[in-house]
């Protein structure tokens, strides 16, 4: 557990990309949002941690005997985490299907060659399993998903592209993700989708939220 400045505390549940750690992180984040402590602002789950943002003055007002709002929040996070462990509900996650055009993946051929397989084999392995949305970051609605089969994992590009087109499906290590906007980016691009990841006037404003599942479907397949 560590402070992220004086108005946020991060609790780390581990240091690996694992579904179990991520499930606990999201559960703790939901718990904080549903039963906010006095001064709570918002919680952000990531792969294996949760950050709680809070209003220092409001936490101190609610805990007049304390000399540190961070200490109050740390204790709060610790006790909630302990209470959470036995009763993490394995709620059926929402699955979102995403149609991908693999003819629009500028790095796909090279990627398949570097893995020693054909392009159709690469696509088959990539679309074979659904992926978990571990966290959202980088840009509004950018979902960090995984984990892809080790045999098709790809390193980031040595020189990031200055412009990756919106809807591009990328791979970095064993993670995959979809660019919600035209933007710079260093992931290897294997396909493209028309689906809108960011839908600002809807509630919620993003297609994915942490904990969702994503299934990629080959439009050509």
């Amino acid at each position: 557990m560590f402070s992220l400045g004086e108005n946020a505390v991060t609790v780390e549940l581990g240091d690996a990309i694992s579904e179990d750690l991520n499930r606990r992180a999201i559960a703790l984040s939901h718990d904080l949002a549903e039963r906010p402590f006095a001064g709570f602002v918002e919680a952000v789950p990531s792969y294996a941690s949760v950050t709680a943002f809070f209003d220092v003055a409001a936490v101190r007002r609610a805990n007049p005997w304390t000399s540190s709002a961070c200490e109050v929040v740390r204790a709060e996070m610790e006790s909630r985490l302990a209470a959470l462990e036995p009763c993490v509900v394995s709620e059926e996650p929402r699955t979102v299907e995403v149609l991908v055009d693999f003819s629009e993946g500028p790095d796909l051929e090279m990627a398949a060659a570097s893995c020693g397989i054909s392009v159709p084999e690469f696509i088959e392995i990539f679309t074979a399993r659904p992926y978990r949305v571990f966290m959202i970051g980088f840009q509004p609605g950018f979902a960090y998903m995984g984990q892809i089969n080790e045999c098709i994992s790809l390193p980031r590009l040595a020189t990031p592209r200055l412009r990756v087109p919106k809807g591009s499906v990328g791979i970095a290590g064993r993670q995959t993700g979809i660019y919600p906007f035209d933007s710079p980016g260093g992931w290897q691009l294997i396909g493209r989708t028309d689906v809108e990841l960011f839908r600002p006037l809807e509630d919620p404003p993003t297609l994915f939220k942490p904990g969702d599942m994503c299934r990629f479907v080959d439009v050509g397949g």
Partner: protein
Amino acid sequence: MSIRIEKAGLAASVQDLGRVGHRSLGIGPGGVMDRAAAELINILLGNERDAAVVEMHFPACDVVFENDALFAIGGADFGAELDGEKVGRWRVLRATADSKLCFEERVKGARVYLSVRGGLDADEWLGSRSTNFAAELGGVSGRFLRDRDVIKFAGEADGEFRKSMVISRSLLPIYSSFPTVRITSGSEMDRLTSDGRAAFLETPFDLTNDSNRLGFRLKGEPLSIDGEVEILSSAVAAGTIQLLPDGQLVVLMADHQTTGGYPRLGHVASVDLPLMAQLAPGDKVGFHLISVEQAEDLAMERELELNKLEAACKFAW
């Protein structure tokens, strides 16, 4: 009831104190870079602290008041003139219809703020009028201001006031082109080599041209970390100081990404973030380590001062 941007300046936009509650979807708070400046002039004008304001860089906009209005400017000193007469910062000023506000020279600081009594009206998205450039929403069509943009007033901007309404000097941020800003330690600070730690806390860093509302890239003695550090991406915040692979630092600012995976060396105390926000390329900054409790105490003191000012201003209006 509006102002008109007669000539758009560099990267000017409408901002408020930002939108909260959406970081988990990758939507950061955004908002003004110099929170102290925006809060102070809004309190002075009797507005809510989070009323929308115009944030401008140098060269700033030429702004025409289309109606009589009370207004205030704060933040950087850009040599403000109203119809050719010099006007001061941090005080209530009166503009008559068609009067023009210009900024003649960059004397000190990097960002100037303009607020009108009653606040500005602009596009609202997820509870905030701040301009979000990634989403292209909020503020004026989610973009920087352009020539001939018109921004309406949210309330009655004219009225009676006392000429003496000025913010006392003791409440103003002490801007400098080489400030020492107070930081709390980041989770990877103790991984720095001993030379790295000394350089981080004892040598100055230059603000490079690669600095904007997303973050400030600094240049100084390259820092290094003992051994390999693999960090899983997790939440970051405005003021987070990250160590990049080339040994240089980036300080995340208002429009930062919500998550990051670089080592976190420190976090600028929120009371000193306005000092960072007023740095321009070529300026320098030094870091001074304090405890989280000290940073909290500073934030509390600031909050009490602002509450007192708010009560006094409400009474005066």
